[in-house]
């Protein structure tokens, strides 16, 4: 058989359950809304880095699962997170992406979060400290103590990233949530303070999971001339792809041969602490976060789903806060050469997922998206994606390969056992 007819094309592939997904999980409006409700509102999300809030009264704003969030550093230097919503009329309190509350605003006084609409004011701990014409309007029926902001769970963890969770009852710390997935990079990121030097965003017409898939599988290095020429040796193909509890994965390291790409050079001189020269680790956190350390520069991708076929990806680049200006410039050059918006690889990845998105819009027929490669859980094995969708199925109680059916843990577990010939070669 060569080309297939419609029935053959849409039939289940000759792979085990759990080794393909139904493309509707990338395009269905109901599933997208369920993901926001059942996953993103209950997961720890690294919304920014503490270096974006250096001083007391600094703030950053963002969105988790369509909920506006504000992160502020208090006078006590603690970082706290709140819904960025005024308890009075539901207005967004702070509209800027970042700034400082040290300065007053047209409706408010310094060192306060002020809702411009009716001038209600809040301190950096979320306490309401001023209601305009309070006694005239509310008499003794409502006072400032009754209308504090909605505080959110917030931790600074893993090299200074600020993690926020909308669920008060998540019942675990970020460390518990990571379940060991961050351990491979923790010594490098926790040794000394880090600093963000790069931020840009992309809004791509594809489902957020397609970007996460691309970060989870390295088989797509055939897309990247740079990665083929600087990798693709025995050490590269031996990199382990490991799954962790809660749907996280990481990809082990090897020494990248940057000199093999014309115009590029070794990054040995500026390796992060405890990282062997030119090594490269990748961590993918459920449901849509990526940490990527290539020797001298750390990248973090944060996905914010905007629709079943639309995602905002925020890209951050980080170096050491102790960098000299020359060291920082070198790190920036290293970062940009591959990962900048005009770099060699990022543009190619974005092109690829855009093209996937073009084939998986909400009205497209369902297709089978394969993730059945088994290579002893090394870099071109697709076990990372399988691990992710196992977790995804659990959270939504939907089968990834047929989202109309309930998730069957036992069926997936049995099918995800390695094929006999792979076990024999392990």
């Amino acid at each position, binding site marked *: 058989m060569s080309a297939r007819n419609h029935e053959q094309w849409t039939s289940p592939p000759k792979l085990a359950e759990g080794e393909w997904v139904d493309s509707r999980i990338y395009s269905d409006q109901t599933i997208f809304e369920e993901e926001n409700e059942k996953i993103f509102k209950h997961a720890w999300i690294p919304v920014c880095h503490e*270096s*974006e809030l250096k001083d007391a009264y600094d703030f*950053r704003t963002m969105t988790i699962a369509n909920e506006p969030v504000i992160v502020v550093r208090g006078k006590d230097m603690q970082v706290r997170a709140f819904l960025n919503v005024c308890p009075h009329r539901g207005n967004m309190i702070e509209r*800027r*992406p*970042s*700034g400082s509350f040290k300065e007053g605003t047209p409706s408010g006084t310094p060192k306060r979060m002020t809702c411009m609409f009716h001038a209600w004011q809040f301190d950096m701990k979320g306490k309401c400290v001023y209601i305009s014409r309070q006694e005239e309007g509310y008499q003794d029926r409502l006072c400032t103590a009754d209308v504090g902001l909605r505080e959110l769970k917030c931790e600074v963890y893993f090299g200074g990233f600020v993690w926020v969770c909308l669920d008060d009852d998540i019942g675990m710390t970020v460390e518990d949530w990571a379940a060991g997935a961050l351990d491979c990079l923790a010594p490098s990121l926790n040794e000394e303070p880090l600093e*963000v*030097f*790069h*931020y*840009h*965003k*992309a*809004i*791509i*017409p594809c489902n957020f999971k397609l970007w996460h898939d691309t970060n989870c599988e390295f088989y797509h290095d055939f*897309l*990247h*001339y*740079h990665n083929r020429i600087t990798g693709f040796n025995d050490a590269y193909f031996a990199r382990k792809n490991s799954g962790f509890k809660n749907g996280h994965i990481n990809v082990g390291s090897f020494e990248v041969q940057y000199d093999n*790409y*014309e*115009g590029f050079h070794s990054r040995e001189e500026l390796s992060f602490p405890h990282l062997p020269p030119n090594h490269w680790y990748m961590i993918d956190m459920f449901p849509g976060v990526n940490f990527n350390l290539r020797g001298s520069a750390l990248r973090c991708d944060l996905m914010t789903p905007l629709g079943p076929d639309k995602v905002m990806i925020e890209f*951050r680049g980080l170096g050491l806060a102790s960098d000299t200006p020359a060291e920082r*410039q070198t790190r*920036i*050059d290293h970062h*940009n050469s591959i990962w*900048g*918006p*005009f*770099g*060699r690889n*990022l*543009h*190619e990845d*974005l*092109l*690829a997922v*855009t*093209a996937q998105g*073009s084939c998986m819009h909400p009205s497209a027929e369902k297709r089978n998206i394969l993730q059945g490669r088994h290579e002893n859980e090394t870099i071109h094995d697709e076990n990372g994606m399988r691990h992710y969708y196992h977790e995804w199925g659990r959270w939504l109680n939907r089968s990834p390969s047929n989202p109309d059916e309930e998730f069957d843990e036992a069926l997936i577990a049995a099918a995800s056992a390695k094929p006999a010939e792979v076990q024999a070669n392990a």
Partner: protein
Amino acid sequence: MAEKHASTIEQIKDVIYKSCLYQDDLEWNSWLDMCSDDYHYAIRAFSPEIRADMEYMGGGLEYMKSLTQMLPKHNTDNSPLKRHCTVYKVEVADDGKSASATSSFVVYQTMLDGINSHVDAGESRLFLVGRYNDKFEISNEGVKFSDREVRLDTRRLDKGSHWPI
């Protein structure tokens, strides 16, 4: 002073516009031939998110030559980019040996293969907004770029570009 350097100012405007045409037509060698040996190129933007200046691409003449030679080996969005540039200010040094210029530009992208060509090909979209901050060396041989800062206002870069702007 402007009168004294009037012909140089016109020469500099011509150089900037000619460089835009070379870049539009992907004639990278012709563009880089207009640059001095110590030329430096950078794309930068200020981020109100992290409240810092950022550099998105940067390098000297050799780096830019290497970059433009290597890019055909990469997958790319082949949708053509066209620069619409207006030179607003040219200042020539008293000794006439150097100059600086500020130009505003927009870059339009006419879709070809970046998304779904059946639907999108042929549509022109605004791609980037920014300024060129240029410096020049002036000698008997003419005017050469010594430095270009592409200062972007646009910071949402969905597919970006492999190519210098």
